[in-house]
């Protein structure tokens, strides 16, 4: 067996990473097609507020990150539907607001250290047994919901109004999607880091779309790219002592560029 799999911390990192690759790529397909790509960045920064609170107050940062990210997703949806604001402006406001809040909390609490750094850029060394449990605990229902409603969500991303006139509960499902996405993003910051998780949601799907195939195959290609990037990126990270999030993102970007070249019109 390869040396890399003999270390317990790498086993934990691989389990967490594979789980996150599956979640991020499937939910990412809907997010990209709905033109919600920027939302993943915003929610990642909101999750950071949760991490800051967790670190300062001594709670499990991942749990608090999940809660804050979900609340932020609901706030975005509320602002989007109740005020005359452009959605990208809302996302931009909440992104910078979250980051500012996180920095203030951390500096007041005196927790500005390596621990936060690992949440910004991801670190395979820091994935604890508890983190793996948390990822499985929240990630499994998130995945089940996504798969259960994938046909409805696909219809909504195609044409929201026609879906509505067909009797699909569009509002409820949109709400469900952003909630699930918020959970997935919060879970991912351990492995990929909050500054880089957007890439794992958006790039595999963007690359898969270059192949111009149907819905099912687009999801499968996206899933494959995400899984490959996480496994390959984490291995590079292990052998060359590089930050895991950054190697994962550069791997997936390489696949994206390759897809662009192969499918050039």
């Amino acid at each position, binding site marked *: 067996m390869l040396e890399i799999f003999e270390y317990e911390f790498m086993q934990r990192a691989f389990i967490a990473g594979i789980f996150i690759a599956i979640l991020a790529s499937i939910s990412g397909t809907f997010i990209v097609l709905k033109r919600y790509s920027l939302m993943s960045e915003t929610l990642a920064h909101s999750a950071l507020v949760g991490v800051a609170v967790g670190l300062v107050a001594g709670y499990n940062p991942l749990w608090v990150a999940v809660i804050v990210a979900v609340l932020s997703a609901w706030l975005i949806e509320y602002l989007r539907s109740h005020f005359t604001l452009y959605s990208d402006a809302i996302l931009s406001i909440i992104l910078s607001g979250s980051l500012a809040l996180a920095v203030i909390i951390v500096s007041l609490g005196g927790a500005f250290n390596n621990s936060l750094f690992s949440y910004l850029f991801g670190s395979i060394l820091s994935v604890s047994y508890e983190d793996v449990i948390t990822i499985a605990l929240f990630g499994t229902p998130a995945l089940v919901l996504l798969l259960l409603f994938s046909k409805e969500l*696909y219809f909504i991303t195609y044409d929201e109004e026609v879906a509505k*006139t067909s009797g699909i509960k569009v509002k409820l499902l949109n709400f469900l999607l952003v909630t699930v996405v918020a959970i997935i993003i919060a879970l991912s910051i351990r492995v990929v880091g909050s500054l880089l998780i957007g890439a794992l949601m958006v790039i595999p799907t963007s690359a898969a779309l270059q192949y111009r195939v149907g*819905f099912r195959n687009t999801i499968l290609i996206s899933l494959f790219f995400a899984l490959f990037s996480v496994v390959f990126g984490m291995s590079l990270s292990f052998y060359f002592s590089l930050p895991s999030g950054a190697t994962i993102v550069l791997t997936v970007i390489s696949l994206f560029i390759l897809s662009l070249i192969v499918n050039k019109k």
Partner: protein
Amino acid sequence: MSLTFKVPIFDVKNLSFRVRGVDILSNISLEIFNGEYIAIIGPNGGGKTTLIRMLLGLEKPSSGEVRLFGKKLKSFKEWYKIGFVPQRASLVDENFPATVEDIVKMGRVANRGIFAGFSSEDAKIVEDAMLKMDILDLKSKMVGTLSGGQRQRVMIARALASKPEILILDEPNTGVDMVSQQRFYKLLAKLNKEEKITIVFITHDIGVIADDIGRLFTINQKATICNDPKETLSCEDMSTLYGIDAHLIHNHKHEDHIC
């Protein structure tokens, strides 16, 4: 008319729509019965699309009421009975990852239970809808690669896949060439005659209206219901309805009348 004894599919009473104090539609009352073939015409900005959107619950009326199969919009649940093809239907995002079959299958989504996948019956219905719209051979093609006319038939096949009793089409010919348009109207007439599907479509294309249409609604803030479209075409102010000459439209009489 004997039809008036039946429960209409759509029963619209005194429907009005105002935006920031401007009347878009005022006091529209009309009924649409099972088996009818209705064209809705009128100038751009006359409120045709707004009317359809209110009928489907996509827009809230300022006042008035819409009943669907005898039920108020809010308590209406059987949306699969209504097939809607919106205006931009043939102008889909070219990069959207969907084959023709993917799109037509969407028509079955609302009919199934949460935990149920697509059954073999669903597959049969989807294939049947593609066959009727003559797109079965395009099944595995990406929608983005199709012509406007082909896409239009895909969108109608999707609507048909929910087995609707009524088909509502908003300017279905946007982005579609002339030959495809003629073929399209033949298909609509066939669906109405053979499948007994009620058809309502919005158009500004006066040329095709006379032959098959049962009734004609002209919408320009108010509704004019014409029960005999052939007669309508001789009404002297009809040309003003097509949005060709703006000041003529402005002079158009708003009173309801029967041609």
